[in-house]
């Protein structure tokens, strides 16, 4: 290595290799720990062997449950994704409308921006009991928790993006004869959609958090429900694949949104770079 080159200027030849090292170490540590513990006590439940995990997973994914007759893994996945999709769908739609409204109209901004700021400070989980009281313990309360949890942030973020559009564009569109409505649909909305994708990506983490919390407390199916249900049997062979699966789903959503944004709104990044 050349002498005197600063650490900030030294770059790895293969970033992928370096990235794989800590993950591999983690896996090796688990395998080692698991085999040591199982050698001591074959009935140890804390660190099940990979083969046990795979068996349990394939049983839950492919064999009908003796009690309910359904394949639990997929049923849980479907239930959770339905809640997630509904919650995020509603939040995204409302945030788009509210962001345009509050961001574009000074009267709306003066009236609502403080309200939104206050609402976004409320820790959503703290009002979960209220939601259960008001909406019952059914699907609605869980969906509403996701909506309430991510909506204020999304509205604030989108409002900010609207306000950030260069003043020159607002004036120019008016000199081209645009009404407020036309400005909204032809100038502001198309430039805000990629920002909406960004806001949605940032909201995915909190949304999962709210979903799993709500499912943990009151549900009859769902990924979060299952994890908290089997906790009392120390069923790590169920919990671990579920956690991996949730991680994979979260990663896949994020990736899909990122690809969508790059494909449809490439001009935005090019604009920012130029």
């Amino acid at each position, binding site marked *: 290595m050349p002498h005197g080159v600063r650490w900030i200027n030294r770059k790895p030849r293969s970033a992928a290799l370096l990235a794989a090292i800590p993950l591999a170490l983690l896996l090796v540590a688990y395998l080692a720990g698991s085999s040591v513990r199982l050698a001591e006590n074959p009935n140890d439940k804390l660190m099940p062997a990979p083969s046990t995990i795979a068996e349990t997973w394939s049983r839950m994914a492919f064999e009908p449950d003796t009690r309910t007759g359904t394949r639990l893994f997929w049923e849980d996945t479907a239930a959770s994704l339905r809640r997630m999709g509904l919650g995020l769908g509603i939040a995204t739609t409302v945030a788009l409308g509210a962001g345009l409204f509050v961001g574009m109209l000074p009267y709306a901004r003066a009236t609502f921006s403080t309200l939104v700021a206050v609402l976004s400070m409320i820790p959503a989980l703290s009002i979960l009991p209220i939601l259960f009281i008001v909406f019952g313990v059914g699907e609605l309360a869980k969906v509403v928790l996701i909506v309430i949890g991510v909506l204020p942030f999304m509205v604030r973020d989108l409002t900010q993006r609207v306000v950030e559009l260069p003043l020159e564009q607002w004036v120019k569109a008016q000199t081209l004869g645009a009404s407020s409505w036309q400005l909204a649909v032809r100038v502001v909305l198309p*430039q805000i959609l990629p920002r909406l994708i960004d806001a949605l990506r940032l909201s995915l983490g909190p949304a999962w958090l709210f979903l799993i919390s709500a499912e943990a407390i009151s549900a009859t199916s769902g990924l979060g429900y299952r994890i908290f249900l089997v906790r009392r049997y120390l069923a790590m062979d169920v919990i671990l694949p579920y956690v991996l699966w949730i991680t994979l789903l979260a990663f896949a959503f994020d990736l899909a949104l990122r690809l969508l944004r790059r494909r449809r709104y490439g001009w935005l990044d090019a604009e920012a770079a130029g």
Partner: protein
Amino acid sequence: MTQISVRNVWQEYGDKVVLERVSFELAPHTFCTVAGPSGCGKSTFLRLLLSQETPTRGEIRIDGEPIAPEPMPDRGVVFQRYSVFPHLTVLGNVVLGLEFEGAPFTGRLFGAARRRAEEEASEVLEKVGLFAERHSRPHELSGGMRQRLSIAQTLIKRPRLLLLDEPFGALDPGTRGAMHELVTKLFEEGGMSVFMVTHDLQEAFKLGTRLLVFDKVRVDEQAPERYGANITYDIPLDSPLRRHGYVGIEDTLQKTA
């Protein structure tokens, strides 16, 4: 033919006086260039002409009528930056002005109406030399091309007054020369008046048929914000660019190369 009259206009922000007692008449078909030191209120005045701001006192009339209190298509504008829409193609940027007019609710034209609008927009693009780029996006254009596009956008609305706010300030000298010829040509062909703010005095002399210089006439050392700027020079010009005929664009480019 557009005649503009400005009567006793003041612009104040709180205690800060930016413009005071500004009055002048602009004869029809004038290329008025406006120069002056930074902070002299020349851009502020352009914003008043645009109705982006309303004067604290005084009034501005176009052809005898008080100007509308908000920006309108009778006054087109080209800013130094950000005045094209990055999410639309070159053609889309120009068609947009026709779409606003023809489709109040959707802001979009379809079918035959759209084809007509695109034809009209293509003619304008040809005039500013951007027809070949009609399917590009603004981020793929050079700075000069973007300003041409911004001009094309305004032309499709046939404004009575074209407002230019340091439109060529960010361009390299060669491109700037070509743009000078373009705006001169458009000014001579169209019936509109042009009002152009620039910090480049040479450019102001070269293009204008009338030059206004804004500056503060009274200065209070203890309270520099106490007095605003006014017109300190009002010079009728015979634009040299036009007197000598068009200076070849090749000459200008060669000089800079």
